[in-house]
């Protein structure tokens, strides 16, 4: 991945920075320039809640090339306590024990490595509470 593209997303991937619409209060992750609800363009930066629950999940058995060494791994759509939904890996879990509604929390993790000399890509994953 070209380094500017990786670097641009660091506030979201490392610090979970989201944009909260100053007019209607809707939270966007990643932040946006215009609110899809009320069309306001004024946002404040907030940090996402770090805990939430699994809304749905899958176990990836056939993985994209940069994730092959991690397969099989679980991924889920998680609704955080502030109502924001994210897609992330569910790490450190027993694959056959996952359930909809299960409580998870966000941790800072390595996502994948771009070969021997490439960038090590970091970001968020969820783990069962």
């Amino acid at each position, binding site marked *: 991945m070209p380094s500017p593209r990786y670097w641009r*997303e660091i506030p979201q991937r490392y610090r979970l920075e989201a944009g909260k619409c100053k007019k209607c209060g809707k939270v966007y*992750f*990643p932040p946006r320039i215009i609110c899809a609800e009320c069309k306001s363009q004024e946002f404040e930066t907030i940090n996402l809640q770090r805990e939430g629950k699994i*809304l*749905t*999940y*899958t*176990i*990836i*058995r*056939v*993985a*994209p*090339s940069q*994730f092959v060494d*991690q397969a099989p*791994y679980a*991924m*889920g*759509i998680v609704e955080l306590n502030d109502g924001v*939904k*994210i*897609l*992330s*890996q569910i790490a450190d879990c027993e694959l056959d024990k996952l359930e*909809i509604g299960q409580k998870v929390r966000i941790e800072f993790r390595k*996502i*994948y490595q771009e070969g021997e000399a490439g960038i090590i*890509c970091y*970001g968020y994953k969820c783990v069962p509470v």
Partner: protein
Amino acid sequence: MREVAIIGLGMNKWGELWEKSLRDIFTEAALEAIKDSGVDHIDSMYVGCMSSGLFVDQEHLASLLADYLGVTPIPSARVESACASGGLAVRMGFLDVASGMSDIVLVGGVEKMTDVSVDGATFALSTAADQEYEVYQGITFPGLYAMMARAHMHKYGTTREQLAQVAVKNHYHGSMNPLAQFPQRITVDNVVKSVMVADPLRILDCSPITDGAAAVILCSLDLAKNISKKPLIKIIGSGHATDTIALHSRNDLTELRATQRAAERAYKMANKKPEDIDLVEVHDCFTIAEICVIETLGFVEKGKGGKATEDGITTLGGKIPVNTSGGLKSKGHPVGATGVAQVVEIVKQLRGEAGQRQVKNAKVGMTQNMGGSGGSTLVHIMEVV
């Protein structure tokens, strides 16, 4: 707006066409459509293609394909909306004729997917999802639809066997389509024991990687009456809508809002209701997709798509036959060509040219073509004149 007829159909056998290039398969389908229509020229052309750049390192299809079809300097455009690119091309052609800008338009769709490795194809397809907030995290397309399937099973009690039944039914239909990539009949047992890709979806829940093209000729209805010797079919409804690109941004993970809005618009324009539709081609990129789509289009109650499939309502001979062509599952899914091929099937059926898989007395047909995990959708309704 002028009334628009579909007067020419072209489609070649789909599959792994190693001996043929993108330009070859497109040109073959286009020539067949032109011949079928009886026109002696075309005024403009639209081609749906998702990712020739990633699949064969070739952009600028507008020029390439007009050139190799021998029709330069007519206006030509390549349109893209991921797996709904073909349906979008149909809409662009429809608007072109309806507006009076062109009288005769060629609409094609093409994708050449087997020149890259499976990894390369998986990557190209994944660009239809949010690269930074879905793909970066490690998701795949089977994974996204698997999460929809899990949510549908949890909310409505849809079963593993009901999902499998979609694939069984579509392969049964495909076995009667000589152009299908995988015309083999399969059983529920074959599906539920096939290799797991992304739980709960297995390989036989997934549409394949395919090389293929399809083309149709659109023409103003008045002109069509002088040119065509075939039964005339007109487009009576066209709906197009979008939704969030990321699945996780949606309020209900089992709801396809773009499909719902596109269908509402198409039904309204055509002045038809779900019960007026005799058959439909839907975007069954994964078995769960067909279940969600038939619910959204109003053919079955919300949450009952699995049960309806199991009961045979969507099988040939049932109340509303779905994917008589074999669907994406059996016929194949060269992404950019799919939306055009759906129209080819409906027109074949409405003309009474569908052979063994003919739906009796078919007068009104519908197509639903969807991009990504549902971020864009095109719906068209066609009727015998």
